[in-house]
């Protein structure tokens, strides 16, 4: 039996369908994979790429900038107020943001720029670059 996966943002359902596996990253930084029959689970998500392996079709990478995951009865719900599908990601802009963040990090380190860099990296990873 497959997992019923939903990626939900406050404004709409970003992605939903059946999948064999969902791989994501929780706040602590640990990666966690959900397969068929996973025990009920609630977690807070960090910034990272959540990979969904649909029962048919190619892997989907979703850039998730914080959110939550709930798993029960083979249903996986990913709630995020900032999640992006690869086709929505502006690769050129993300690359530009990465270059800009890297340049300013060479001079001084601050949390905001580091977060910006991480976001850009996650976007590019999800977009497959």
């Amino acid at each position, binding site marked *: 039996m497959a997992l019923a996966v*939903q990626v*939900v*943002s*406050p*404004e*709409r*359902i970003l992605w939903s369908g059946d999948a064999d596996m969902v791989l994501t990253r*929780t*706040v*602590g930084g*640990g990666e*966690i994979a959900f397969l068929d029959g996973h*025990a*009920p*689970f*609630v*977690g*807070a998500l960090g910034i990272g790429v959540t990979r969904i392996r649909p029962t048919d079709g190619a892997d989907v990478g979703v850039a998730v900038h*914080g959110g*939550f995951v*709930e798993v*029960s009865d083979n249903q996986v*719900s990913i*709630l995020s*107020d900032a999640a992006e599908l690869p086709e929505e990601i502006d690769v050129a802009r993300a690359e530009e943001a990465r270059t800009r963040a890297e340049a300013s990090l060479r001079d001084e380190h601050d949390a905001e720029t580091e977060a910006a860099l991480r976001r850009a990296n996650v976007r590019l990873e999800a977009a497959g670059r």
Partner: protein
Amino acid sequence: MAGGQERVLRRRIKSVQSTRKITKAMELIAASRIVKAQQRVAAARPYSEQITEVIRNLAAAGAGGDSPLLQARDEVATVCVVVVGADRGLAGGYNTAVIRTAERALQAERDEGRSTALVTVGKKALNYFRFRGYEIADSFTGFSDNPTYEDARAVAESVTARFESGAYDQVRLVYTRFLSMAAQRAVALTYLPLEQAPTDETSGPTADYEFEPDPGEILDRLLPRYAEARLFAALLDAAASEHAARQRAMKSATENAEELITKLSRVMNRARQDAITTEIMEIVGGAEALRQGKGAPEDLLVDIIGGTRDLLPDTLDLRR
């Protein structure tokens, strides 16, 4: 003279006609926006349902005893009222209803001896309360007819921050609930502290969840999102209500305009006919007088009308 009256009426009919064009256009725009707004309400539902579900699970696992957003204060000294109105008028009683509900809520708190604070959403609500000398703690404008999640977040952050700091002990939210296309009602409800999600007995022992990190920490991250989602839902509902109210108001305005045009056209036609009749009477009277004065034969009248057509007054030109 009667011709002058006709001109005045014609001008009025023109002006009512162009007003009708505007109200008709606004009606159609509002009608199409209601559909879109309702779709957005529906699209936002899965998120808030899921987030409520997660909170329920966390509560079942025993989390949330000490989260500040859930704590009801023992002594409520200051109550903040958040009013969600529209940026634009021409929406019938929409703004009036929500403002009146907000005023009643404020009055009720003052009667209890509590001090009140006011946060407004929408230009109309802001102007109303500012004009009446209310002190406005914070105001948001520019998105009432099409709010985004970012807008909801801005409002929620402003309010929750002051709730957490203790400036407010309670936050009430006044907005218009979209019941159906025909019915919207202004409601006031408690926004903060968040209501402890009721533990669902029907779902049975589902509490054996794994949590990462621990339930309390997840809840601390989740509650602000939940507060935002609730405010977002209220904003979307208010937007749908605003469009519905505007559509109804504009529909009746269009109908009134049509009625007015019919009435005015009738009056104008009568005035024109009166004018024509008067002119004919004048000509006939004049011809008669001439005939009698000259003692000429009967065919003089035919001579005048037949031979001097171009001398007839414009009002006899029946092409208009």
